[in-house]
């Protein structure tokens, strides 16, 4: 497998991780999804490294340059309020095909672990109203919105976080709960 253009140390870390998983007899399939600059198709802004490990998705998004893609994603200059509203929408875009629109009968748990300021990995799952656990395949939209929520919260609270989690439980009428894990 050739490097699709990631920073060398990130590529090395990923290859080591996959080699370790394969050695432990896990099944690993990897796909790449590249976010290109619409004004310059030769220019890559971010890469989603979508890893299917034993049937579960873990998507690591790598930014080329911090905040470079904000105008393309449409989050430049947004406050926490707007980002939180947006987080609900981008989460719904992947959960609704499983749970149905506007339902409160499901549970959703999404985790974003920050590897460095320019890359994080996201994984999560839904428990449908029939009790079925379904993995979520995130993408760079989730990453950018959650990463910016993490950045802004960190600035306000004067704290560093290593992880942000989104939870939606049946008992909370479909409301989102954001959990911050201190670094």
């Amino acid at each position, binding site marked *: 497998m050739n490097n699709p253009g990631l920073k060398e140390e990130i590529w090395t870390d990923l290859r080591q991780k996959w080699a370790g998983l394969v050695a432990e007899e896990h099944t690993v399939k990897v796909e790449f999804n590249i976010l290109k600059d619409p004004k310059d198709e030769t220019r890559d802004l971010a890469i989603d490294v979508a890893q299917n490990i034993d049937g579960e998705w873990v998507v690591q998004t790598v930014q080329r340059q911090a905040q470079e893609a904000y105008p393309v994603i449409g989050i430049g200059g947004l*406050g926490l309020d707007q980002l939180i509203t947006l987080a609900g929408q981008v989460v719904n875009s992947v959960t609704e095909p499983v749970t149905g629109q506007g339902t409160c009968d499901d549970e959703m748990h999404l985790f974003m672990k920050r590897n460095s300021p320019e890359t994080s990995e996201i994984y999560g799952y839904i428990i449908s109203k029939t009790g079925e656990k379904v993995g979520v395949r995130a993408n760079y939209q989730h990453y950018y919105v959650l990463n910016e929520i993490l950045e802004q*919260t960190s600035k306000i609270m004067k704290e560093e976080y290593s992880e942000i989690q989104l939870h939606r439980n049946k008992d909370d009428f479909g*409301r989102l709960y*954001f959990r911050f*894990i201190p670094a």
Partner: protein
Amino acid sequence: MMTVDDILVGIRKSFSFLWEEYGFKFVGLMPKSGYHDYGYFAQLENDWCKLAFQSESGYLEDICIVPKGVSSAGEFVSRWALLSTGVERKRLQVPYTAENVLNNFDEFARPYLLEMLELAKTPVLFEKRLKELEEAAGSNPITIEIVRAERARLHALELDSSLGAAMAHLRKRAKHE
């Protein structure tokens, strides 16, 4: 309606002593809460307890404190404010600006919050004190006016007229009555 930015900035600014003196960290947020989704729920944690800032209306109404390792539901700071202010509890909810609400919390609830933070280090003492407060409130509620009058009396006598001292005098008196 307050924005999430306002809520978090307000908590961090008004309760900075929780970070600086008690080592709290911000760990959770439900940005919409309450019947009309106007409220919020924000959580802090330190080594020995959890705090939850709660609102139904968008303005801070309650602070819940739960020692770690205690499985029972936490009690609310406004409950202790209620214990001290009795029927005048509404006074804590009347001012409809964030600053006023926070100031009122500072004046009436902060002494209880500080006391409970210390007690939360020892869950047994925490629960014992809660019971005492509940019993005291049931038998002889102390209103804001009573606290003010006591502070004025102590001041006139050139004694310590702080809120804590006034409350101590009132509790002592209530015990003897």
